[in-house]
């Protein structure tokens, strides 16, 4: 296993995973990932799109350094500053919203934190405990926490999953604003094409397990100027292409 994590320059993320396998409880080994190789430039937003269970989360875990049992190398732009939003919010139930964010970002300026809470509509909930929050709110706190550390790399694992449409729409807009206003290299994992097309600069389509990258689609129009028709058109185009793979 040549699991190497090194720090790249200029906020560049370079992922070269040649192979990753899991051992099941029965002792049987099965392949999850094969030849996942891609690059993200500084402050670029990439989206990994693939069917459920294809190993998308595993890719994020490998990049985050949580899973080191793989073959390949990761060159990440993190100089210790990695922000991650897990699929579940993973907040400390015994700390308030404020304290949850401050735990990972103790040196954040009060104005910064206030503006972050304002964009995410969390001002009224600063002193609440996670058990008092809805799923959508908790998700937003997790996002605030990841951004509070002013990350060089932001990893988002299905940030909108299990939210109702209206809520997902709002968080999507907030997310777009947030990544638009900060130079953060972002990698997003989702099974929802719509979401990927709205947020990403570059989409990587994954096959079913063992996951491989079947296509890399750069989106030419800048995120902020993409119209509804354009988004629908791109989504339709990609859906046609992937129907054969999924």
């Amino acid at each position, binding site marked *: 296993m040549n699991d190497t994590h090194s720090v790249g320059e200029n906020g560049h993320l370079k992922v070269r995973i040649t192979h990753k396998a899991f051992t099941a409880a029965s002792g049987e080994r099965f392949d999850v990932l094969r030849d996942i190789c891609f690059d993200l430039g500084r402050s670029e937003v990439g989206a990994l799109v693939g069917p459920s269970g294809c190993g998308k989360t595993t890719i994020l875990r490998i990049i*985050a*350094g*949580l899973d080191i049992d793989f073959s390949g190398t990761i060159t990440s732009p993190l100089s*210790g500053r*990695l*922000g*991650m939003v*897990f699929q*579940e919010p*993973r907040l*400390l*139930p*015994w*700390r308030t919203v404020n*304290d949850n964010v401050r*735990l*990972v970002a103790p040196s954040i300026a009060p104005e910064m934190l206030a503006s972050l809470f304002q964009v995410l509509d969390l001002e009224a909930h600063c002193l609440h*405990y996670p*058990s*008092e929050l809805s799923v959508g709110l908790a998700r937003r706190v997790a996002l605030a*926490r990841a951004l509070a*550390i002013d990350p060089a790399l932001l990893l988002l694992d299905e940030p909108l999953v299990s939210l109702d449409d209206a809520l997902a729409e709002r968080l999507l807009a907030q997310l777009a604003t947030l990544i638009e206003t900060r130079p953060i290299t972002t990698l997003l994992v989702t099974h929802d094409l719509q979401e990927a097309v709205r947020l990403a600069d570059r989409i990587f389509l994954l096959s079913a397990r063992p996951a491989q990258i079947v296509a890399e689609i750069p989106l030419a129009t800048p995120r902020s100027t993409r119209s509804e028709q354009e988004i629908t058109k791109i989504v339709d185009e990609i859906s046609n292409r992937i129907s054969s793979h999924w």
Partner: protein
Amino acid sequence: MVRLISLTLFLAIWWLASLFAGPQMLPGPVKVLTAIAVQAQSGDLFFQLGVTLARVLAAFTIAMIAGTAIGLLMGRVKIADRIGDPWLIVLLNLPALVIIVLAFIWGGLTEIAGVLAVAINKLPNTVVAVREGARALDTSLDEMARVFAVPRGKFFWHVVLPQLAPYLVAAGRSGLSLVWKIVLIVELLGRPNGIGFQIGVAFQLFDVTLILAYALAFVTVILIIETAVVQPIERHAFRWRKRAP
């Protein structure tokens, strides 16, 4: 209100029983309370209470800190658990008296030997409770802390300790009562002062009044600690739970 009735009932039964048994075998509540007052006036009561309480707190603190450290290690590191488990079983089943007597033989009739003997008696219970807590630690929060590079000290204080709190409270609750009972035996066997020593003296004189006076005084002290110290700490540690819907 119910508590008050319950307490009155207890005093009534005590008083009735004392009428039947006679003041030699079981002195009534008034006589015992008077004895407490007399001991308090001479200052002797507070000295003995203080000495015993100091030993209780010292042994309790040592047992809780060492027990938490060992329990965490055994709950988190498999090899430590496998090495430590037989020791733990031996320690759990070793009678308090054996540990105390050996401590006094090996360490002399000293304060340190006495306090350590009590701490060693309490230690395995704490280890068992904390080990259970350490096994139940949430790995998803672990990973969160790793990704965000939360420093070790903060990780322990904000992530690990709150998860161990229910186990520590349980260990502490049972620990306080266990420790003070064992401290009394230590004092009876090898210390020249403290409630245990006084009860030993009273036993030789067959002075039941004095035995009850000292026991009652110390139970009251423990009750005060429980309501004035343990319960507020517990309320603070679990404040986040109460507001849950």
